[in-house]
């Protein structure tokens, strides 16, 4: 091999892509030619400099967690493709809901689902005892760093029990308890930090994107409004929870004022 050839294939040689014979040829030439040796050294050090300097960020922990959840969601869906059943409401009601909520499936679950369920299922006492949404909003005013605005549900469907301070996704949350006969519902309100809201199914209804998940016998719906994230949990099936939300929408009221 002469200088010309070595120069031409220097990169291939340095990339370790030459077979044994060619490699020995190049090395034989480098052993005798200082100019080519200097060129090779230059190339090698350039490559090393690039490799050492190029940022190699690790995937953020929050993203890793979300990804693992999404993969799990994918798994659950593929083995139980029809997990959401509407059998607990009469056929006419199902039809009405289907017309309004034509669900589409999105990927992944939010890790917030588990947290919301855990706040809901833990029997913590309320700190303020009132059936008035106005009073609850007022009570939170001095206690959290965001302005709690509650949806106005039809009182026939849902009665307000009270509220307490709570936390969700490492930030302050307003926890509001509701009741409908023996069924319990919890609404968590937190400041919106713009994270992805996911569910087994998401759909735009009026001006809200609702994301719904069923897990461990609970159902959770997320939506966001005016800089706040709302998570509503019920120890019922998804269709009951949707009916409750629908009652607020049906009165022509947004899910937050």
């Amino acid at each position, binding site marked *: 091999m002469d*200088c*010309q050839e070595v*120069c*031409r294939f220097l*990169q*291939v040689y340095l*990339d370790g*892509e030459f077979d044994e014979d060619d490699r020995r040829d190049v090395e034989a030439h480098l052993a005798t030619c200082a*100019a080519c040796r*200097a*060129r090779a050294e*230059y190339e090698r*050090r*350039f*490559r090393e*400099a*690039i*490799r050492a*300097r*190029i*940022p*190699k*960020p*690790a*995937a953020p922990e929050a*993203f*890793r967690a*979300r*990804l*693992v959840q*999404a*993969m799990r969601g*994918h*798994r659950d869906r593929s083995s139980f493709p029809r997990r959401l059943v509407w059998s607990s409401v009469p056929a006419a009601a199902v039809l009405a809901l289907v017309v309004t909520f034509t669900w589409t499936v999105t*990927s*992944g679950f939010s890790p917030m689902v588990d947290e919301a369920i855990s706040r809901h299922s833990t029997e913590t006492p309320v700190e303020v005892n009132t059936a008035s949404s106005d009073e609850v909003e007022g009570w939170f005013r001095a206690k959290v760093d965001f302005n709690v605005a509650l949806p106005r549900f039809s009182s026939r469907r849902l009665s307000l029990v009270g509220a307490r301070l709570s936390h969700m996704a490492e930030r302050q949350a307003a926890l509001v308890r509701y009741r409908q006969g023996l069924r319990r519902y919890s609404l968590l309100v937190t400041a919106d930090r713009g994270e992805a809201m996911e569910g087994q199914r998401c759909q735009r209804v009026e001006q809200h994107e609702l994301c719904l998940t069923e897990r461990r016998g609970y159902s959770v719906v997320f939506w966001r409004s005016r800089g706040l994230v709302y998570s509503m949990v019920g120890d019922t099936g998804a269709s009951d929870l949707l009916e409750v939300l629908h009652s607020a929408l049906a009165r022509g009221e947004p899910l937050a004022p």
Partner: protein
Amino acid sequence: MFFSKGKKAERRAVFEEQMLEHLDALYGTALRMTADRATAEDLVQDTYLRALRFRHKFEPGTNLRAWMFRMMVNLHINKCRRERRGRQIHEGLERHDMAERVLPSEKMAPTRRPEEYFFERMMSDDVARALDALPRDFKMVVLLADINGFRYSQIAEILNIPVGTVMSRLHRGRRLLRESLHAFAIEEGYIKPTEGETADLEAFRRSKQDREVG
């Protein structure tokens, strides 16, 4: 051959674990490809979900990391195509592919003096900036070879291009990268320009402007 539900779930869990070993590499590359954190996360998540869906197509014993990179690159290309409908991103490349297939016989670079190892004084920000400024196809081969350590044949498969094209793009990509870095080094005062190098800087700025406009 039939597997019980439990065994199937177990094999799937193992596969998921193996896939997650490559998360940092895929994420880091996606970040350089998209230059945006949220877009990179979406791309990586789509890649994992797609890989799960098509896991039966993965041949055990072959390179899982290369297989996932290929999937990510394809997803990205398809996304870009959808986004800029009508503007074929590869159109320009196929055209000079023919010319690239033969390794360009570069004129011999002059022997360097030790003080010209300017790149060893550069910061990682400079390198990232220079890499991001490379035309997409050169950037991809440099990312795959120099950052992820893939071999020519693996890169050829990931990008679905001939090995000869990999070689020429890689070599030209590295040269462009060095030229960019050299221009930054002058801009930032790491090195003093000589007469010839001033001309290079002008050319670099022009090409940078062209890219920004185009």
